[in-house]
C-alpha cells in the first residue's frame, strides 16, 4: 500500500513538473505572465515566400485580432548563421488597421536578432479595443543581400499575435484568472515549439507510469471487475515493454531527431530534462555508457553534413544534443566509478 502511495506521489510530482516546465516555457515565449499568444493559420502571410528577402522586397500579412490588447505580432524566420553586426540586414516593420490610410506603427529591426529569437516579435503600442478588427502588417528588407538576407519559415504557425491583458481584471475574480490561464495554456499549446517541449517534459511521467504498471497489484475481488481488466492490460503493456525495451529507448531518440531535423526548438529545458531521463533509461535497461558515447558521436557526425548542406542551425542543434549526451556520459562514468568504489569497499 505504501509502495502504491509512493508511486502515486511521485507520479503526481512528475505531472506537476510537466505542467510547471510547460508553463515556464510558455511564459518564456510570451515574455510576460499577462500576455498570451494566438497562432494564426498559414494564410496570415499573403505573399509568403521561402526565398531570401532581398533589399526592397516585402512580405505582407493580415490577421483578425482575437482579443483586446493586441501589442505584438511574431513572425517565424528560418534561423541562419550569425553574421557580423555591421553587415546585418535592417527590416522595416509596419502595422495598421485594414482600411486605414496611415501606418499605426513602423520601426526598423536588425536581422541579427533572428539567430537568438527565430520567432521574432514585432511590438507596437497596445491596441486596447482590437478584438474582431482586421490588421495588416508589412515587412520590408532595407539592406538585404545574398549574405545577410532573412528567410521566412514555412512551419506552422507562421504568425502569432500576442495580447496583453489587464492585471486587475484577471485578478478580480478566480473565474477570470482560471479562464485566462486556460486560454493562455490552450492557445500556446497550438504552437509547435510549445507542444513539442511539453511532450518532452511529459516523458518522465510517461516512463515512470509505464515502468511502474507492473507494481500495481489489485485484490482478487477487483481483478474480476473493470479495474481488474485494466490491470491485465497494464501488465501486458509491462510485459511488452520488458520484452522490447527499444520501444521506450527509441522515444527520446526520435524526439531528438525531430528537434534536430525539423523543429530546432530553442528551449534549454529540453536538454535539462532529457539528460537525467537518459541516465535513468540506461540504468533501467542496464545499458552501459557505450550507447551514450555512441549517440554522442552519431549526433556529432550528423552535424557535419548539416553544416555542409548549409543548415547551420540544425547542425548546431545536433552538436548541442551531442554535447548533452557527452555531459550524460560524464555523469554516468562518475556514477559507475562511485558504484565500483562502493563495491570494492564492501
Amino acid at each position, binding site marked *: 500500500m505504501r509502495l502504491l502511495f509512493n508511486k502515486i506521489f511521485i507520479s503526481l510530482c512528475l505531472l506537476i513538473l510537466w505542467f510547471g516546465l510547460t508553463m515556464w516555457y510558455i511564459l518564456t515565449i510570451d515574455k510576460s505572465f499577462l500576455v498570451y499568444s494566438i497562432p494564426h493559420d498559414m494564410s496570415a502571410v499573403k505573399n509568403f515566400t521561402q526565398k531570401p528577402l532581398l533589399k526592397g522586397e516585402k512580405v505582407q500579412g493580415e490577421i483578425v485580432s482575437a482579443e483586446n490588447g493586441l501589442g505584438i505580432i511574431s513572425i517565424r524566420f528560418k534561423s541562419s548563421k550569425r553574421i557580423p553586426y555591421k553587415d546585418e540586414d535592417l527590416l522595416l516593420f509596419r502595422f495598421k488597421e485594414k482600411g486605414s490610410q496611415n501606418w499605426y506603427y513602423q520601426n526598423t529591426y536588425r536581422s541579427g536578432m533572428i539567430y537568438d529569437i527565430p520567432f521574432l516579435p514585432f511590438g507596437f503600442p497596445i491596441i486596447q479595443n482590437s478584438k474582431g478588427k482586421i490588421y495588416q502588417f508589412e515587412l520590408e528588407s532595407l539592406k538585404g543581400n545574398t549574405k545577410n538576407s532573412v528567410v521566412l519559415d514555412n512551419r506552422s504557425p507562421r504568425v502569432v499575435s500576442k495580447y496583453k491583458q489587464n492585471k486587475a481584471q484577471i485578478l478580480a475574480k478566480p473565474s477570470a484568472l482560471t479562464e485566462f490561464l486556460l486560454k493562455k495554456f490552450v492557445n500556446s499549446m497550438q504552437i509547435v515549439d510549445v507542444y513539442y517541449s511539453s511532450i518532452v517534459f511529459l516523458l518522465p511521467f510517461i516512463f515512470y507510469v509505464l515502468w511502474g504498471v507492473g507494481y500495481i497489484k489489485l485484490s482478487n475481488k477487483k481483478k474480476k471487475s473493470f479495474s481488474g481488466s485494466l490491470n491485465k492490460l497494464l501488465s501486458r503493456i509491462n510485459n511488452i515493454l520488458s520484452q522490447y525495451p527499444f520501444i521506450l529507448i527509441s522515444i527520446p531518440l526520435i524526439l531528438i531527431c525531430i528537434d534536430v531535423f525539423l523543429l530546432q526548438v530553442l528551449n534549454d529545458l529540453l536538454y535539462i530534462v532529457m539528460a537525467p531521463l537518459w541516465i535513468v533509461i540506461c540504468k533501467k535497461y542496464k545499458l552501459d555508457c557505450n550507447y551514450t558515447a555512441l549517440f554522442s558521436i552519431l549526433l*556529432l557526425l550528423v552535424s557535419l553534413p548539416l553544416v555542409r548542406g548549409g543548415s*547551420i542551425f540544425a547542425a*548546431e542543434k545536433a*552538436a548541442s544534443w551531442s*554535447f548533452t549526451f557527452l555531459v550524460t556520459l560524464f555523469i554516468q562514468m562518475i556514477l559507475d566509478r562511485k558504484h565500483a568504489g562502493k563495491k570494492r569497499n564492501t
Partner: protein
Amino acid sequence: MKKYSLLIIFILFLIIVYHTWIFSNGIFTYGDWWYFWNESLISVRVSYFNIWISDFNLGRVSLGIGQALTWGAYGFLNRLIGADYQLGLKIVHLFPIIIFTPLGMFVLLKKYIKSNIAQLIGVLAYCFNTYFLTLQTGHLTLMVAYSLLPFILYFFIETLEKKSIVYGVTTALILSLASAYEPRVAYITLLILFMYFLYELFNNIRGYKKLIITAFYAGFPVLLFILLNLYWIVGLAFTGSIVENELFSRSLFGNEFLNILYAITTFHPFWTGIQPNVFVLEDIPMYQWFIPMGAILGVYLNRKNSFAVFALLLGLVGILLTKQSGMPFQDLYLWLYTHFPGFNAYREASKFFSLIVLSYAILIAFLAEFIINNQFKNKHFLYLGYTLLIVITSIFLFNTKPFINGSINTVFISRHIPQDYFLFKNILISENHYSRTLWVPTLSRWGLITINHPAISLVETMNSDWLKQTILFRDDEKTAGQIMLSFIRSEKFGELVNDSNIKYIVVPIQDSANDDNFFQYYFKSRNEYITTLNSLSYLQKKQIGQSSLVIYENKNYLDHIRFASPSATPTSMLHYNLVSPTEYTIKANNIKDTTSIIFSDIYNPNWRVRIGKFNWFNSIFDKRYYLPSSVNSPSSSGMNSFYFNSDEVCKIYSCVKNADGTYNVEMTLYFSKQAVVNLSLIISGGTLGTLIIYLLYSFWRRKP
C-alpha cells in the same frame, strides 16, 4: 640513441616549424604586437611596476601592472646584457612558447601515459591546434601563459597526491609566472585547479580529516599565488580598477564568431590555413570533426581512468563557455559575464578554447595509448583505430604548414623600420625636456614612447581623455576620419595641443608592407590629414630624412607641470623633476597668495601634493600627510589642477619665506595609491624570495 630517436625527430620538427623565430634576427611585429625601441624598453617597460603610467595618451592607471614582471624583463635584459627588442622578444616570449608548450604537456602526459608515441601525439595536439597557432600570430602573452598551463596542473595534482609542500610552492610559482604573462590565463588556470579539487573530493576523499588535509594542500598554492601577486591586486583594487576599468566595462563582443560547432571541433573561427583572417568567419573543414571523435573515443575507451574522465569534464566546461552566446544555454555566458566575479575580463569567449584544447590533447593521447597497446580485441577495430589516429595526427601536423612555408606572415616575417622613424626617434631622445607627440590619426608601430616623451593617438584620445572636450565634434553620420579632421580645424585643437604638452604632431607613413597602414580604418586618406595640418598657422613643418614622415612642430606647447596663469606672481618660478611616473618633485619659488599648478596628466583624484619631505611609507598611515584631496580638481582640459593658498599652507607645512613676503615651497606630487603598491611589492617580493630559498633548500636537502 634509439631510445631518444623520437625525441630528436620531434625537436627537429619543432626547429623546422619555428625556424623563423629561431634563426632570424629580424623584427617581429604585427597587429597588436608592438615594436619597442631600446629607449622605450628602458624607460617604459621598467616602469610597469607603477600603478600610474604616462606612456600613452594623457596617462592611465596601469591595468598591465600584473604583467610588470614580463614586460619589465625586456627593460632589465636591455640594461643587463644590452638585449634589444628582437633578443628580448626571443628570451621572454618566443623561446618559452617553443620550449614550454610541448615540454609542459609531455610532463603532464608522462604521469598517466606510458607509450612515448601516445605522449607525442598528445603533445602535437596541444602544440599545433588551430587556436594556439592563431594565438602565436600575435597574442604571444596568452600563448606563453597557456604553455605553462600543463605544468601548473601537473604540479597541483602532485601536491594533492603526495601532500607535498615543495610541489605546492612550485605550483604557486609557475602559476604566478603564467599570471605575469597574462593574468586572465591564470584565472582560467585557477578555474581548472578548482575543478580538479572538486573532482578529487567527489571521487577519492572520504571523511572530514582527509577533506581538510586535501583542502589545505589545494588552498595553500592559491594563497601563495595571491601573496605573490598582491602588488597588482592591491594596486588595482585601491584605484577601483579591479572591478571597473576600461577592459572590464566593455560589452560582450563577437557573438557571431563563436558557436558550439567551432567549440566542439576546436576550430578557431579565423584560421585560414595561411595568415589568419581576423573578424572573417571561416568554415570548419570536414577533417576537424575527427578531433572530437577521437577525444570522445579516448575517454570512452579509458573510462576507468580517473584522469581521462576529468579531462572530459574540462572539455565540457570549455565547450559550454567557448560557444559564448550560441546554443545550448544561450544566456549563460552573458549571465556569467555580468554577474560572475572576474568573468567580465573575457568579453569574447575564445580564451576558453584552452580548456577544450587541454582536454582533447589528453584524451587523444589516451586513445593513442589504447590503440598502440593493442587493447582492441577485434582486428578491424584496431585497423580503424590506427587509421583514426593517423588522420588526427596528420591534422595537427598539417596545421603547421603555413609556419614552415612562411605563408602565416604575421609575427613570422621580419619587418623593416623606415629610416625617417630612426631620425625622428633620435630627435626626440636628444631632447631632455618633457613633451608629448601626437600621432594623426593614430600611432605608428615605429613611434617612440618614453616616459619623457609619451605618444598620443588622436583617434584614441578623442575617445577617452579628450572625450568631454571633443564631444561637440561627434556625429553618428560622420566617419572617424571626418570627425578628426573637423576637430583639427577647430580652435579647441590648438588649445588642447598646447595644454597637453604636444611639441610634435606626426602623420605616419602609409606602410602596408610592414603592417603599418591604418588610414583605411578611418575612411580618410593620409593626404587629407596632411592638407588640414598644413593649414594650421601655429604649426611649423619639420623636414627630416626623406620627408616621408610628415612632422609638425608646435612652438607654443606648455610645460608638463606649470603654474596656471595668472595664479603666480611675475617672479614666480617652478622647477620639477620626474622621479618616476608616480612621483614628481617640484620647487615653486616666489609664490604668494593663491597658487594654481597644472599637472597635465589626465585628472585622477589619487594625485596628491605633499609639502616638505616625502616618504611614501609614512603616507600610508598618516591621513594628513598630503594637502587635502580637494586641492586637486580637473582643469578645463581635463587635467590635474592643484589650487591652494600658499599663506595658509605655509602656516602648517615647512616653507621658506622670502624677504618680499613670497614663499619658496618644495613639494612632491605623488600618485598616492603607489604607496600601497610599494608595500605590497615588498610583501610579494619577500614571498618570492622566501619561496625560492625554500625550494633551493629542499632541493639541497634531497641531494645525497
